[in-house]
C-alpha cells in the first residue's frame, strides 16, 4: 500500500543535542509537510516543500530545519532541542497546489531530557 512512513516512532534526545527525524513516502506526491503537535493541541505547520522549493512558516523557530534530498524523503532537523520542543512530529504529503487531502504518517514522538 502507498503510504507515509516516519522513523523512528519514538525518539529520546538530550537537551541541546541535535536530532533528525525522517519521513518517506511512496505516494509520489509533490508536497511534503512537517507539523508539530504538542500534547492536547492541534497540529501546527512548521514548513513544507513543493518539490524542492522550501516554504517556512513565519513563526517557525530557526532551531528547526528541513531537507528534502529527493521526492520520497524529507528530514526534520532540530539543531538544539529544548524542553519545549518535546512533541509529536507529523509528516504529511499532498499531490499539489489544490487544497486537497493531506496524507499523514504515524508521527514521531520526541522526548527531550
Amino acid at each position: 500500500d502507498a503510504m507515509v512512513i516516519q522513523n523512528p516512532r519514538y525518539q529520546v534526545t538530550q537537551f541541546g543535542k541535535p536530532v533528525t527525524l525522517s519521513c518517506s513516502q511512496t505516494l509520489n506526491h509533490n508536497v511534503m509537510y512537517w507539523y508539530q503537535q504538542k500534547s492536547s493541541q492541534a497540529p501546527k505547520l512548521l514548513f513544507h516543500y513543493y518539490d524542492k522549493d522550501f516554504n517556512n512558516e513565519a513563526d517557525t523557530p530557526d532551531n528547526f530545519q528541513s531537507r528534502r534530498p529527493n521526492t520520497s524523503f524529507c528530514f526534520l532537523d532540530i539543531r538544539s532541542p529544548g524542553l519545549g520542543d518535546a512533541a509529536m512530529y507529523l509528516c504529511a504529503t499532498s499531490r499539489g497546489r489544490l487544497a486537497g487531502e493531506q496524507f499523514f504518517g504515524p508521527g514521531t514522538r520526541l522526548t527531550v531530557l
Partner: protein
Amino acid sequence: AQSVTQPDIHITVSEGASLELRCNYSYGATPYLFWYVQSPGQGLQLLLKYFSGDTLVQGIKGFEAEFKRSQSSFNLRKPSVHWSDAAEYFCAVGATMEYGNKLVFGAGTILRVKS
C-alpha cells in the same frame, strides 16, 4: 486568516447513541473542509472532506458531515457510535498557497464512549 473553532473539548456518549461534533470556520473564500481522526499516539486519518457540490458529505466508518455556509459550520455526525470511535477528532480548513496547500486545524474534540 483562516481559523477553525471546535467548541467542545470533550464529549462523552453512550455506545449506540448518536453523535454530533461541532466545527465552525472562518475563511474568506470557498473553504475546503476536512475532518480527521487521531487515535492515541497515532497520526491523523481522513474521515471525510468537502470541496464543493453536495453539502452533505459521506465519509468512512459511517461518519457524515454537513456544510452550512450561512452558519460557517461543518459539523460531523454519526447515527450510532461504536466503542472503537473513541479518539480525538480534528476539523480543518484548507487554503491553497502558491506551493502546496495549508491546513489549519481546530483544537480538537476528544470523544469518549461509555458502554
